[in-house]
């Protein structure tokens, strides 16, 4: 067949604005083997089962044919998102000590006021603008400010780590283009640079606790000890990137979706208490992480009647599962009050999103304040221009007018 494989079409930038028909095709196909030997799974129940299957590795080094993104970089080890238990559990647990329960149950809840203030300051700065770019003016600065405070990274260094972050995200873009090696090399290089930068910030706090997470990594020890300097670097890179690259898309996809569904927008203005449910629906309907491209079976496994051989690249299309009519009634409808909404937007299983409570809180506050701030917002460009990545999918800019 001369036509591109399904995965090529899904990752093709031309289809970024609306990949959902391709996801429907994927669900129809069942487990889809691609020409390069990788397997795509796009149906809800199969994805959910694989996310809980202990024989599915997140460590790319388990692949029969290691790929360039497998972290061949000597120096910075993989972070826990790319490791399996028990190592994953140990590192994630140590990072969680200063982020959430049971040791720090109030950290995120305690940020409510802080986040609201940041949001209101951002909006106050936009009061005179007739035309707003939701991404640059709002959805990007918010999570960056929040994750900087949480980790203890100076916000004025944003231009530096933005560049590294862009390169790292491009590095794990699985789009099968002509020369992925160069992208991956640049991503690896950027990761190393960011790691050294964060490691240095952390080291300067050793012995001088400052209440942020980098400080906790080098000053607080649990029963399993402390993160090593290299582990601190790897974990810091992961949290800094995950803390803003995903939430920016969730907020932006959220505003775009609300503008495309004026009834839902009007309803949320009338019933602001629906916002938590609406954010869950956004995570289902337009998830900021569209797929998990780095899974690998550690044994031959059977999925929906098909055997996926040990060591094959396995790609879980979360966004396709989220629209599976076998799981969600009216799956292609955006329903801000949807009940029984156990979406895959944050994944599931051992690697279930570390920062989910923070992403939820930021997005709930951001959208609540944004729709209060804008009386009659309208989309200037639909579809908007998208960012390149098919994994972390979202608009590059989202221009709206005030009416």
């Amino acid at each position, binding site marked *: 067949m001369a036509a591109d494989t399904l995965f090529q079409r899904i990752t093709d930038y031309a289809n970024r604005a609306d990949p959902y028909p391709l996801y429907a095709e994927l669900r129809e196909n069942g487990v889809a083997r691609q020409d390069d030997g990788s397997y795509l799974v796009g149906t809800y129940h199969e994805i*959910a089962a694989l996310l809980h299957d202990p024989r599915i590795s997140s460590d790319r080094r388990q692949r029969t044919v290691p790929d360039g993104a497998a972290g061949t970089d000597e120096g910075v080890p993989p972070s826990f998102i790319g490791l399996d*238990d028990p190592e994953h559990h140990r590192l994630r647990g140590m990072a969680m000590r200063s982020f959430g329960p049971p040791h720090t149950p109030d950290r995120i809840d305690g940020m409510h006021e802080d986040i609201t203030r940041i949001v209101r300051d951002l909006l106050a700065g936009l009061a005179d603008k007739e035309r707003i770019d939701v991404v640059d003016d709002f959805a990007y600065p918010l999570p960056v400010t929040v994750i900087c405070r949480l980790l203890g990274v100076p916000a004025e260094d944003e231009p530096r780590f933005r560049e590294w972050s862009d390169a790292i995200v491009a590095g794990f873009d699985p789009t099968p283009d002509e020369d992925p090696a160069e992208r991956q090399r640049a991503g690896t290089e950027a990761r190393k640079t960011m790691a050294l930068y964060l490691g240095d910030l952390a080291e300067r706090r050793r012995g001088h606790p400052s209440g942020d997470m980098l400080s906790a990594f080098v000053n607080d020890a649990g029963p399993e000890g402390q993160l090593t300097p290299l582990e601190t670097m790897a974990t810091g890179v992961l949290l800094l990137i995950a803390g803003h690259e995903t939430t920016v898309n969730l907020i932006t996809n959220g505003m775009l979706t609300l503008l495309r569904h004026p009834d839902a927008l009007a309803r949320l203005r009338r019933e602001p208490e629906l916002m938590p449910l609406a954010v869950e629906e956004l995570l289902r309907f337009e998830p900021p992480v569209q797929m998990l491209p780095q899974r690998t079976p550690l*044994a031959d496994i059977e999925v929906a009647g098909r055997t996926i051989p040990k060591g094959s690249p396995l790609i879980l299309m979360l966004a396709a599962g989220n629209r599976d009519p076998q799981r969600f009634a009216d799956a292609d409808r955006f329903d801000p009050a949807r009940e029984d909404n156990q979406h895959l937007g944050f994944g599931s*299983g051992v690697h279930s999103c570390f920062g989910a409570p923070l992403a939820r809180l930021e997005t709930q506050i951001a959208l609540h304040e944004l729709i209060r701030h804008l009386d009659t917002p309208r989309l200037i460009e639909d579809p908007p221009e998208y960012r390149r990545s098919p994994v972390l999918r979202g608009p590059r800019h989202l221009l709206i007018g005030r009416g």
Partner: protein
Amino acid sequence: MLGEPRADRIVIVGASLAGLRAAETLRAEGFTGSLTLIGDETHPPYDRPPLSKQVLLGKVAADRTGLPQRRRLDADWRLGVRAGGLDPVGKRVLLDDGADVPFDRLLIATGTRARPWPHPDEAALDGVFTLRTSGDAAALAARLDAGPRRVLVIGAGFTGSEIASACRERGLEVTVAERGPAPLVGALGGTLGELAAKLQRAHGVDLRCGVTVTALEGDGRLTGAQFSDGTRIDADIAVIALGAVRNTEWLAESGLAAGPRGVTCDAGCRAFDMYGIVTDDIFAAGDVARFPHPLFEYQLLSLEHWGNAVAQAEVAAHNMVSPGPRRRPHLTVPAFWSSQFGLNIKSVGVPTFSDQVVIAQGSLKDARLVAVYGYRGRVTAAVSVNQARSLDYYRHLIETAAPFPPAPGAADQRESPVPVPSDVPDPKLLSHGPTVALTGHLPDRRLTVVQPAR
């Protein structure tokens, strides 16, 4: 959908978790008739799992565990009055206060109570407790606050072990007496029982297995206890944790198949009468119900599990207001959890329905693992310790009657993949028969598939 609207009056006896969830489901399914909940406790429905955990630790007051109500019920609550009898012909529930309550459909959800200490004189000593109700928990927590010199826990099942854990966390001296060879062994078998024993001792519990308490001593106040091995201890509190008794006495003359093992019902929660004929209008759910489960060779199961109370109540309520073809079976895979001695223990399936066990993930040494149980070559249960995230995977294996031992390849498999006997004491006499698997993910699409005996 309300298929046969002849049920205008529904009465639920038992106003705890199962009763409440059934009532909510009835309303959610469109039942608009009169709804009466009868409960012998004066409190509105409350949650029991925290009573042996957060409440005993003093983190939550005993009267602050009320269950959230998920919708407005518009129900007639008769709290603080016990149901004393059932007239199935006249279709009335007879209350102890002399009133009777007529019904078109009845749900029996009377649950269980704590098994009392067998010697009433000793049980009456000041300092001797059981733990089932919020009142029990309040009284026990208050006495733990007062700083007793030693607490004796009789029985090392889940409740007893959780109580011992809470006492140790408070820094109190604890003796645990267990007739079996190890704590939790009756529910989880030998391998995890051994782990539990090790952990209790590591946490400073004076654990005595293979002994019984032959006497509680005291003169008005508890002062100590004697054991079957001839030893004795001083203790000023004893908690009797000898399991539960099903609240079925009120049904003794009802003609229903009700007795010490529960109210027997079919997979659709309809109660049987004493001849084994299924009734049309009387349903049972929760701890008091005893029902056949196809995954476990149609053995009648009585489950004292929070999750079962919810799931079974929902099925019972649905079936109470649905015509025959729309009724659903209660096919939920049993599941429960416990937290004690820093461990989070979760179980799916029926671990006692097993002959072998294998540590499929993690290790006993780290006290972080998944133990998978099998019976005659198929997976029947899994228990996780501090590692619950893959339990859904094992539940799927149980539902599909997957071969035991499970396929190797777990990323964190550490121990030998060779199964050992599960050492469940007093194994049930299991008969060999066809294997049954479950299909479908949605409640109304769940089916059983029978695979002929191999």
